[in-house]
């Protein structure tokens, strides 16, 4: 018999998820003015909007009817070229040149303090040889995702915040992987895309409700926070990324439930919690991370963790150039 759902004792995983949802909502909503925030919090329709959104989106997800964006063309081409023995930097430069914003991003990054060029980088080919194929591939992925996937009309501040957080998590994940002697590229990609479900869901909501300005923003972000991991995993599958990456994205809020790649899922979950902001680059932030419940699972001793936390300044500089 299908009755109304009885309240259940929250499991530790549910509690963790709820805490994270609250933090994510706070992070995103924090960019809205306090007056508006107050109005939204007082909205009596909050609960009903959450329930309605949850139901409609869950149905679409279950029916595989949620519109998922395609892997951006330029990324597919860059990946193909950078993996080929026959291709050279000129060919790759040509593909990137056709994408104006990406060319600009790459030039900006090549000239950023992170790479400290002795002389200014003025050509794409020069930038390619300075950054290397792997970096270019990562930047192409990040910039394309920023342009084509991380966008939802009316939710620009939240989406931008989400992208900045994702990129920083990708950089943190790759350094964690390097420290653990795990695959570096895989960790970056899983970190970069761990929250990709958020903009996809926001765009779906915009498509469903059009320009409905009365939609409770807090309710929207609450539902997005609940469902984004699942949708992100689906998108990774659609883009034919590895099953390990798809699983790490899908389970980054409940990494112990991952079956194929539990270690990668734990790593991404932890990277998700490393504060990206340079302003947080303090002793206290590092000390708090030491007590993170996933640290024992990653077997990171304090000095290893401190070395990664210390690199957040580099992450912030890279982030400036890309986002």
């Amino acid at each position, binding site marked *: 018999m299908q009755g109304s759902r009885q309240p259940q004792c929250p499991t530790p995983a549910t509690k963790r998820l709820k805490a994270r949802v609250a933090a994510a909502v706070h992070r995103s909503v924090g960019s809205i003015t306090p007056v508006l925030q107050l109005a939204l919090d007082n909205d009596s329709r909050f609960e009903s909007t959450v329930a309605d959104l949850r139901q409609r989106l869950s149905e679409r997800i279950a029916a595989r009817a949620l519109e998922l964006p395609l892997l951006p063309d330029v990324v597919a081409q860059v990946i193909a070229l*950078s993996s080929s023995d026959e291709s050279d930097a000129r060919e790759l430069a040509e593909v990137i040149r056709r994408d104006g914003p990406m060319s600009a991003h790459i030039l900006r990054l090549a000239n950023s303090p992170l790479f400290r060029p002795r002389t200014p980088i003025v050509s794409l080919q020069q930038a390619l040889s*300075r950054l290397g194929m*792997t970096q270019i591939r990562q930047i192409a992925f990040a910039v394309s995702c920023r342009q084509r996937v991380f966008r939802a009309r009316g939710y620009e501040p939240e989406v931008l915040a989400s992208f900045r957080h994702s990129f920083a998590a990708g950089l943190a994940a790759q350094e964690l992987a390097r420290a653990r002697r795990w695959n*570096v590229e895989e960790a970056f990609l899983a970190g970069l895309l761990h929250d990709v479900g958020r903009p996809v869901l926001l765009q779906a909501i915009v498509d469903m409700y059009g320009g409905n300005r009365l939609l409770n923003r807090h309710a929207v972000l609450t539902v997005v926070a609940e469902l984004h991991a699942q949708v992100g995993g689906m998108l990774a599958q659609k883009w034919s990324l590895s099953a390990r990456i798809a699983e790490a994205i899908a389970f980054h809020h409940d990494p112990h439930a991952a079956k194929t790649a539990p270690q990668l899922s734990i790593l991404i979950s932890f990277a998700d919690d490393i504060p990206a902001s340079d302003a947080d680059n303090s002793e206290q932030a590092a000390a708090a991370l030491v007590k993170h419940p996933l640290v*024992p699972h990653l*077997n990171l*001793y304090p000095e290893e963790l401190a070395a990664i936390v210390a690199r957040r300044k580099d992450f912030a500089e890279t982030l400036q150039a890309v986002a």
Partner: protein
Amino acid sequence: MRADRPWDVVVIGSGPAGQKAAIQAAKAGRRALVIEQDIRVGGACVHRGTIPSKTLRETALTFSAFRRKSGHVLEVNMPEDVRIAGLNSRMEGVVAAHETFIADQMKRNGIEVWHGRARFVSPHTIEVASVSRGRRSAEASAIILATGSRPRDPGAVPIDHEHIFDSDSMLSMRYLPRSLAVLGAGVIATEYASIFATLGVRVTMIDKGERPLGFVDPEIVARFLEAFAESGGRFVGRGHVRSVAFDGISSVVTSLASGEEIRTEKVLCAQGRVANLEGLCLEAAGLKADARGLMAVDARYRTGVPHIYAVGDVIGPPSLAATAMEQGRLAARHALGLGVSDLGAGTSPVGIYAIPEIASLGLSEEQARAQGGAIVGRANFRELARGQIAAIEDGLLKLVSDASGSQLLGVQVIGEGASELVHIGQMAMLGHLPIDTFVECTFNFPTLAEAYRVAALDIVGRRAAAPMARTSQVRIAG
């Protein structure tokens, strides 16, 4: 920080040496504690070394055996972008099963395991700091150091674990590279070079020595190099590496002093290993590493402090799992005042899981000749029915006898099954059996074990041609 009641034995490290030491202590009814800095037990052997690389090797072997055994009727080509994870799909299962087995075995024997980093506070007291910064201490009557080793970082090679790997990160690659340079020519370098070459990767092995595996019989090494070249591998001997650098595009450039530049997609740096001794605060126990960074021990694996023992990679070569296990067991027995037998002394085999496999035992031909002469008998696997049937035609077994051709002094084998075959010779050496035993015994047919009979017959034939040997033969018969 709290102190527990004293332990009979505290073992630092849960690799092969540590496990066997702790199990020996527990089997003797003593309280044993193992301290492991990793979250999992098993050490590098289980998680980064022996078990994972051997699992990949099995996949490579299956791939090459399929081509060979089908008489090249069926062409097997690797598709592009083969995922190592796919080739190594059994690896995680094998590693997990082995780890579970070790953990269960320790639990079953009542061995306690603490996870954290150990350091000496005094000769009998060890403090353990866990990842979460919790601290506790253990006092012990005997302490066994089995902390293992890690890849040596040569400094001049910028290992980034992304383009340039060491043996700990090598298997984190998700895709099979098109080309690979291997720096070094020891056991690990040779194993990885031959495994990847068998998988169709263009491998260049570079070393400053004239040939790989300097401690192995030159004839066996020559056979290995033939097989390696046949798989598409190239060995660059006397290759002095000047620099290694990622070119920023898609290749790593290894520049040699000769002027040659070798461009490969990835590089493996396997130029030796260093003992894990830092952080132990050895000085608090009155200990010090030697000039090579190893722990010096006596014949019973005792360090300069009598109740502290060291076993496995921390004491240096041969740095093999099998040897380390035995060292751990013997050290625990001695520490607990149990009898220690010298029965197996000098007969520890060496197994190198390259493709083809290499194994050796006792004296090489060169060493035996230097000690007063030798007669060497050979059996090529292509002369054996089983070698032909199983398409293992590149194998060779060498028996090294004394100058009279009567006593077995050493065995060298190359070819599939070498690491198993060598044990027949080991038993013969332990039992001091004369060479003629191999001639007079019946072996199953067709088997590779028949190689012993063929090689022994070769010795018999050679000694018959030598006057001194004939005398010796009469003596044996009489």
